[in-house]
């Protein structure tokens, strides 16, 4: 997307565009989120929270305010009522805004960006319902249903060819979700992951690929150009290139998986040709299990 002469007009047009597409996207994300079984996700341990966890005998150090007198009256020793730890998590979503995400190998398939936003929003809805604080990269995570609209509004297209994860706004010890095709230079990703790992942030990498990128169904003399046109590669016979391309792609995936494992993250590759639900379920469980 090129910058228009009048930024306000461009903004307005964009807003109108979003205003048209957002309800649909939101509704779709809500519907997708509904399909994932939602339960109160307590932390299964004593801590700060509203829900009762267990009674235990008071021992030294417990404040008198902590003693549950009703329970203690039924016995000789004082009991303390513990609550389940319900610390809300901060989840930061980063959706690659770059132009490479606008690719779709076929008209009937959604672009990678569409799928990434859908997944991000659905994850956001889920997390928000679970009481977490959710925010987009660069924004502070906030709880509450209203945050969904903020999330939706914040999803925008960028101008660069390949995106670099934005790790700046990560809340320490929080969670992060990076949705991208990760086809750009790996250095940015490595940096971002190292930064996140330094802050104790864990999360998931969801690599979104179009089936065309997996199959490479091209042949003949071809000039490949990146979506922005910054990169180009010419070949005389694309089909001869296929095997080596696929090897590179496999290597990239392997690299990402290794990176993720090294910092305790989860990595998965999702194709836009597949239903979004499986990816959502996987990401949700990965976030939950990443505890």
């Amino acid at each position: 997307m090129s910058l228009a002469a009048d930024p306000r007009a461009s903004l307005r047009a964009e807003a109108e565009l979003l205003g048209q597409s957002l309800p649909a996207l939101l509704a779709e994300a809500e519907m997708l989120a509904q399909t994932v079984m939602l339960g109160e996700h307590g932390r299964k341990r004593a801590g700060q929270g509203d829900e009762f966890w267990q009674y235990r005998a008071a021992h030294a150090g417990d404040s008198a305010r902590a003693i549950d007198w009703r329970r203690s009256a039924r016995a000789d020793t004082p009991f303390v009522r513990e609550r389940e730890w319900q610390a809300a998590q901060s989840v930061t979503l980063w959706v690659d805004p770059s132009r490479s995400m606008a690719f779709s190998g076929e008209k009937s398939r959604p672009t990678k960006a569409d799928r990434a936003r859908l997944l991000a929003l659905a994850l956001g809805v889920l997390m928000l319902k679970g009481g977490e604080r959710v925010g987009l990269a660069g924004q502070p995570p906030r709880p509450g249903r209203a945050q969904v609209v903020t999330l939706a509004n914040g999803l925008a297209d960028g101008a660069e060819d390949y995106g670099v994860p934005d790790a700046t706004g990560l809340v320490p010890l929080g969670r992060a979700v990076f949705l991208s095709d990760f086809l750009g230079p790996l250095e940015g990703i490595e940096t971002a992951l190292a930064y996140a790992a330094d802050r104790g942030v864990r999360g998931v990498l969801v690599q979104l690929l179009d089936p065309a990128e997996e199959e490479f169904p091209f042949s003949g003399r071809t000039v490949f150009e990146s979506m922005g046109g910054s990169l180009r590669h010419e070949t005389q016979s694309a089909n001869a290139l296929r095997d080596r391309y696929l090897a590179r792609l496999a290597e990239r995936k392997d690299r990402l998986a290794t990176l993720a494992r090294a910092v305790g993250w989860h990595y998965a590759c999702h194709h836009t040709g597949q239903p979004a639900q499986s990816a959502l379920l996987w990401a949700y469980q990965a976030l939950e299990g990443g505890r």
Partner: protein
Amino acid sequence: MTFGPLAFAAPGLLLALIALPILWLLLRAIPPAPIRRRFPAVALMLGLTDEDRQADKTPWWLLLLRALAIAAAIIGFAGPVLNPDPRDPGTGPLLILLDGGWADARDWPRTQARAQAALEEAARMGRPVAVARLTDAAQPITFSNPADWAGRLAAMQPAPYAPAYAGWEMALPEGGFETLWLADGLDHKGRADLAAALAARGRLTAALSPRPAYGLRPATLAEGKITLTTLRLGVPESAELDVTAHGPDPAGIDRELGRARMVFAPGADQAQAVLEVPPELRNRINRFSLLGQRTAGAVALTDDSLKRRKIAVIDSGADREGLQLLAPGHYLRQALVPVADLLDGTLTDILPAKPDVIILADVAKLTQAEQDGVLDWLDSGGLLLRFAGPRLAASDVARSEEDPLLPVRLREGGRSVGGTMSWGEPKPLAPFAEGSPFHGLVIPSDVTVTEQVLAQPDPDLASRTIAALADGTPLVTRKPVGAGQVVLVHVTANAEWSSLPLSGLFMQMLERLAVSARVGGGLEGAVEGLIWSPERMVDGYGDLVEPGDLAGVEGEALALALQDGPSAKSPPGLYRHEERLVALNTLPPSASFRPAIWPAGTLVEGLGAARSQALGGWLLAAALALLALDILASVVVSGRMPRLGRAALVVLALALPTPEAQAQTPDPAADARGIEATRGVVLAHVLTGNAEIDDTAAAGLRGLGDQLWLRTSVEPEPPMGVDLEEDELAFFPFLYWPITPDQPVPSTRAYAKLNAFLRTGGMILFDTRDADIAGMGGATAEGEMLQLLASGLDVPPLDLIPEDHVLTRSFYLLQDFPGRHRSADLWVEAPPPDAGELEEGMAFRNLNDGVTPVIIGGNDWASAWAIDGTGAPLYPVGRGLAGEDQREMAYRFGINVVMHVLTGNYKSDQVHVPALLERLGQ
């Protein structure tokens, strides 16, 4: 500039071919334009180099394609001409001679085209031209403008006879001229002289058709076989050729009636074939033609000479004690057998065969029916030839008044001259008077008459006498009856009364009476002074045409033409004089083919030899096609061809040579099944597709088979299910067909099988299994299905089973036919309408009909018959003991049905009546 048979109009352009290698290099350096694709994963491809660096050059085959296209274009524009005409065009007047005979018809369009080409060339050169067709009568030749001749040339058609060269030599114009003679390649009379005369006047070019000439001589008939002779010229090797005989069929439509194969030995110039066809067909043949040869010479018309008369000889017959060799009929048969087809039998039997001649030898009286039949036959043109004899002399036929079947009244007793008991000498014959059909025949001196029947003097006796004795008594009399005639020979057909039957005159007289074969065939005798009118004509291509207003031909000219071949004055065709028909064929019987010899110095060439052909157009078209191919190839090379399209191409390529794998191979499984089904009597049921119904039907037939085995001498094999579409039905005598509402309707092929099954004595028992719910006229789904299924079957009218139907007594005596249900309604083939009513006191009618092909009911018999593996019934029938009785009755019905199928109406034979009555207790 010429290269072998090629010449170029603009050879300079060929220099451009030098540029081809340069073009090659240029094209090679410029690879096909790439396709641009947006592809994010290009980041992964950076640094991947192409393994095959050659690929960025144009592929060699594409280069070759383009080079070929351009070379074709260059050569095409250079104007190549194949077979350029190298001769010098010549000057001065040009005479174009066409033979124009029948032999030219084989290549007439090319002959005309060659003449046109010569005309055009002469027009270009400004030469005066004359065109003459040598089949026409000779007329003075004058040269004129070529344009004058073009129209006349186009209108010329080949004549159906050979060219006549006599007189043309005189008609040649003064001075020198060049001649183009488009000859037919055969040597005709006078050709060498004319050729020599032409060669003396200037250059002579002879253009001959390269196609071989074939001709057919007139067919000859000997001993009932037709002999055909084919001539040929121009082919030395062995060849085969078919000759077909054509004629009208009984409906009058022209058809091929016979065919013979001519086999030419290598080097032989003629071949013979013998065609043997029945006389009926032979009499209808009106022409023979060589298959594939459209010339008048390849057609031989036939006239009466091929026809053999059908003659019925009837003698008195009662005189069986007499010596057969002396019987009048014997003389007649001996005389006629070689030349005619004799019919034997009684008069009433023979008349429908429409003989040409009926000979009554000493038959006096015919019955009224015979006489009427003979009169009708005479009205339509028959010839009744009667011979006198003792019976006729002794009878009172035609004494007082004229008999319709005798030409004159007869005097009682006849007369005898020159015998032992009489005075006078045996009488010789008087010369035949003019106007008599026998006029001109020579009378041998030893022919005498000793006895004869005498005609009553009547006013018209003289006009009816066509032969008389020396003393003037009539010997042969004749009168017309309708379109036919009655001829009486006043003596016997044997040698008792005269020596006439012993002489050759007898045969000739019979011939003259149009009795024997060769009347009208050929022209022996009596042609002088006659005018023969054309009936059908042959055109140059051998097609029959109407004669139009052609003048008649004199007999002498016709006789000459028959001998030497036809000419413009007597063109070939059929000629008629009164009853006689003569075929004048293009080739006379003595015809033979000799190749024409040309004088030295003659330029002999083929018709198409001088044709030069411009190749430029073809080459340019090839260049265009190659360029179109190049577009396709470029698309493929640059990867722009859609994958789908390529897949479709592959599929197309695979689909095109679809092998016909459906060979008629014997199916071992079907064979095994056939053997199984023919091991013994096998009861079969139709597979409905409903597994439960099919199982029940199989179990039911098994139960019925067990009962048959126990109680009767029918010992059926285990039942089989029959798939109507796949299985052969002919093995089974009986089909049980349970109806389900949803079973598939058989295909047309299956219906054909079913109908064949029914027609050859099979029986189908339709069971709608709905008798419990289908009341009077209540249509159930099964009932409707049955109607649908049976609509394709060849089923006779049906009726409710009468109580005396053979099904009620074919084994057991039955009154009703229960299965699991007890409905009395059972439909079988209706008795014939003339069967009559059941008589009082009779147990049943005498119905001699066959087996009913279908039985239709709804009692669910299979369920009642069905047994399981241990022999116990599968389904309950009725209640208690009464139910078991019903099951027993169901078995009895089944046994009766099988018996009815296997024994037919045996039990309706009256032989069984007493025993049956006894069993019925009457």
